[in-house]
């Protein structure tokens, strides 16, 4: 029962994605191409975020703690 609901919901989400991006009206090979491109772009965005965001957050944090006289931070480490 639960599984069916989840499946229906995922299918519904996929249908909305098809409609909004208009891939609903594309031919099958165009659709695969479109999906490949979207998935690739999305994966790259996620990967980039994963790799770079923590570093930037840390750098930003250090920058601001220095700026506001967060000396203890650096002395402690």
């Amino acid at each position, binding site marked *: 029962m639960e599984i069916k609901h989840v499946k229906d919901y995922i299918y*519904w989400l996929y*249908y*909305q994605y*098809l*409609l*909004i*991006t*208009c*891939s*609903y*009206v*594309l*031919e099958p090979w*165009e659709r695969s191409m*479109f999906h490949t491109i979207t998935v690739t772009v999305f994966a790259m965005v996620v990967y980039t975020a994963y790799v770079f965001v923590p570093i930037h957050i840390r750098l930003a944090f250090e920058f601001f703690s220095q700026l506001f006289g967060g000396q203890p931070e650096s002395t402690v480490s």
Partner: protein
Amino acid sequence: MERPGRAAAVAGAQPRANGCSGAGHGTLRNGYVRRFPAPDTQVDHIVHNGGLYKRPFNEAFEETPMLVAVLTYVGYGVLTLFGYLRDFMRQWKIEKCQNATEREEQKDFVPLYQDFENFYTRNLYMRIRDSWNRPICSVPGAKVDMMERVSHDYNWTFTYTGRVIKDIINMGSYNYLGFAQNTGTCQEAAAKVLSQYGAGVCSSRQEMGNLDKHEELEKLVARFLGVESAMAYGMGFATNSMNIPALVGKGCLILSDELNHASLVLGARLSGATIRIFKHNNMQSLEKLLKDAIVHGQPRTRRPWKKILILVEGIYSMEGSIVRLPEVIALKKKYKSYLYLDEAHSIGALGPSGRGVVDYFGLNPEDVDIMMGTFTKSFGAAGGYIGGKKELIDYLRTYSHSAVYATSMSPPVVEQIITSVKCIMGEDGTIVGKARVQQLAENTRYFRRRLKEMGFIIYGNEDSPVVPLMLYMPAKIGAFGREMLKRNIGVVVVGFPATPIIESRARFCLSAAHTKEMLDRALKEIDEVGDLLQLKYSRHRLVPLLDRPFDETTYEETED
């Protein structure tokens, strides 16, 4: 279509002597104030110039939600990119081009198939073409039978499976009063006339084609409209496009609503008169044009215009709005111009006795100089008419191209019109006609109210039997048509170029032939499809017409 609120009382604005208030109406700038019985915002409409209206006039157009507009453009973006890809492949012969192409011999000539319209047809319209021009194979009454067809090459060609899809609820025909029938008094009368006169006339009205039936029809139509005289033509489109040139010409000015039907646009262009466009149903815009026309006269020479003709329609078939006729008439009188009213959709469908917008607003038909309409819609026949003063009709009889050169109307068609008009007028001794007019009004209110409650964005006037439901996204046009057909409901979907590119819509036309059960079934399915496709965009925020964007176009005559 649309407008949510039930109407409200009439605004206090006192009509001035000429019945028309000028530009400065303080807070009522847009012609109406808004109050609507929504939870948070109270918006409703009060008609400004209220004194001119004998009944509430509720008309509004909900704003396109920003997110929806953005997503619509994203969709078009994706389709355009793939369109370019496909065009590229066609050009390099990677795939076969099935559309018209430039001829080899004309390769270096100005290209014929590269403009946006062609690109659109090839790469966007083709993908959802299955929702249009489906052949039907029965009388287009409340239910129709449709021929099943399939496409094996993505809508480039269709093949018929030979099966018929039966009993589709017809929400698309302009069969307002349900006279598109193959049984009943109209059919019997028409069949009798057919056996007496045959189908064709093979001559024009001025030669051997003037039947007694035509004379009878014209007298009847004149009586129905409440005008001195009327004239009938074989085609509604030609009535407009051929009579306007007979009425105005060079040195005249035509003021035309921006959303007028193609036949009016064509007629206006053929006439050679200068054409200026006012915003849809916007009286401030019309008054400004009239004022300018009178103050400045013709460009360069500054001579006064010979005639000024205002072209409006009764019900606009894409927006479902009703013309603000009392205000138009007031303006027309104030500025002494002429008024041409196209009642194609409104005749039969509006007014307590089915006599069109003039009846709806309780006005005097004599105030409209040229009453035009068609028999194709409410009367379930074919052809058009013009009604007005006797001098006008006598003049048109001799000067209008479609009166002089066109073969006269087929007698069974004439008989269908005569019987249906008599039925509406109650002259057949029954109240069937009146009941149909009331049924249509009831169906309209019910259908519109239910759709609005479901949360769809619906355009137009609360009393207009044309109900546009906004779809916006291009993929949803195709999906809506297909899903509805799967559920045995026939609908008409409309996209560019009939509407602005982002405002694609489905258009329902109500009919007196629809029963409550049919409407309930249709509404249930629409509700379901609306949830599936996420079409319930409405947030109940209304904009008056004035705020809608439009293209300021003027067709100024160029002198060479």
